[in-house]
């Protein structure tokens, strides 16, 4: 990142990734507004550290990692007691369930909030964001075997919750 031009190019790439960063953040924190705050913190940090990003690396993974680390910092700073972060048993905040056609989607979102956050992050990065296992493992700073195992357990738990005969209520 040695010239203004390349900095501006990366900045525009970050702008293009904002929708996905917002989506990922919503799987980390409780409300859309707080999720956007996390995105803003992550983007500001990323700009300060542009020299640490190598253009052969995926920009999205790099940003997800900064966002995830920013979230961890927040969790630590707040002593793990805050309701800002998704409680593992609460799906009521995801929105109005009034429209029939939204019930499916809300069920999936509600099910996600019930996953332990390790599994939720693995599912979010691989299944929602479409990252390769090795990139997702890198974002989470775990070996690929750990990522695979979290993903498998998360999927299994989701499948159990979303199964038609399953009891979500």
């Amino acid at each position, binding site marked *: *990142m040695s*010239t*203004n031009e390349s*900095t501006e190019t990366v*900045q*525009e790439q*970050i*702008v293009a990734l*904002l*929708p*996905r960063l*917002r*989506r990922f953040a*919503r*799987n980390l924190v409780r409300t*859309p*507004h*707080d999720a*956007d*705050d*996390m*995105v*803003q*913190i992550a*983007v*500001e*940090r990323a*700009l*300060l*550290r*542009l*020299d640490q990003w190598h253009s052969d690396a995926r920009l999205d993974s790099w940003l997800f990692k900064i966002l995830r680390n920013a979230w961890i910092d*927040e969790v630590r*700073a*707040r002593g793990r007691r805050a309701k*800002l972060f998704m409680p593992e048993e609460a799906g009521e905040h995801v929105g109005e369930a009034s429209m029939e056609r939204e019930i*499916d*989607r809300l069920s*999936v*979102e509600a099910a*996600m909030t019930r996953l332990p956050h390790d599994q939720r992050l693995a*599912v*979010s990065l*691989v*299944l*929602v964001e*479409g990252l*390769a*296992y090795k990139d997702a493992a890198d974002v989470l700073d775990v070996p690929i075997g750990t990522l*695979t*195992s979290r*993903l*498998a357990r998360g*999927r*299994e738990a*989701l*499948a159990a919750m*979303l199964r038609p005969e399953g009891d979500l209520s």
Partner: protein
Amino acid sequence: MIVSDETLMAYADGEADAATRAIIEAAMREDPEVRRRIAEHRAMRETMQGAFSAVLDEPVPQRLIDAARGRTAAPAGNVVDLADARRAAASRSPVGIRSRRPAAMAASLLVGVALGYLGLHGASPLVKTSPSGELLAGAGLAAALTNQLSEDRSPGLVAITGLSFRAKTGDYCRTFSLAGTHSSSGLACREGDGWKIKVLAQSPPAPASSSNFRPAASDDPPAVRAAVEESIDGEPLDRAGEITARQAGWAGKSNR
């Protein structure tokens, strides 16, 4: 054939290597249960993708776009007043993350803005940050602020100084402009041994035919002019006043 669920999952996700793929595809041909489990994994993947896609169609808040471009939500888009940015950071989210640590957030925000404007990342002779996160003039800019008189327009300077004045705080402050096509202008005030940058704003691009520097302090961006008007005590220093202040090391009331 027994295939572990993790292996089937990896196959469904396109993560299996060629040898594993061959084994699983053989298993799929002979075992409907394997086919069913792979279909389940793929269906799960589709479900998860679709479930969270609504946010992708939402308009992205302008503050995030500005942050990605190294700007804060200043009214003119290109102009950043540090005090405004601080207030905005503190007030934007009364129950959100920012209000819980406004000082740290404001500091990182401002540094990000400044570095974004200057196109600088890492060590710079023009801008540095104090251990507490404040934005200070780096060696090159500090030397210009300490030594140059405002009439100095010699070629090759890293920065020119515009207006010098005594602020209501008793400190000396000076406006400055940095060289370059992405030039920035700002206001710095003497505090202790350093120059603390109070405002940094991007100057309009200079016409290609002109010199690197904009000609006069009166061309300072509105945010800089406003900061001067807000903080100035009395009249700007003339040449004799600048020389006297320089001889005293620009020492104001707060650092005598």
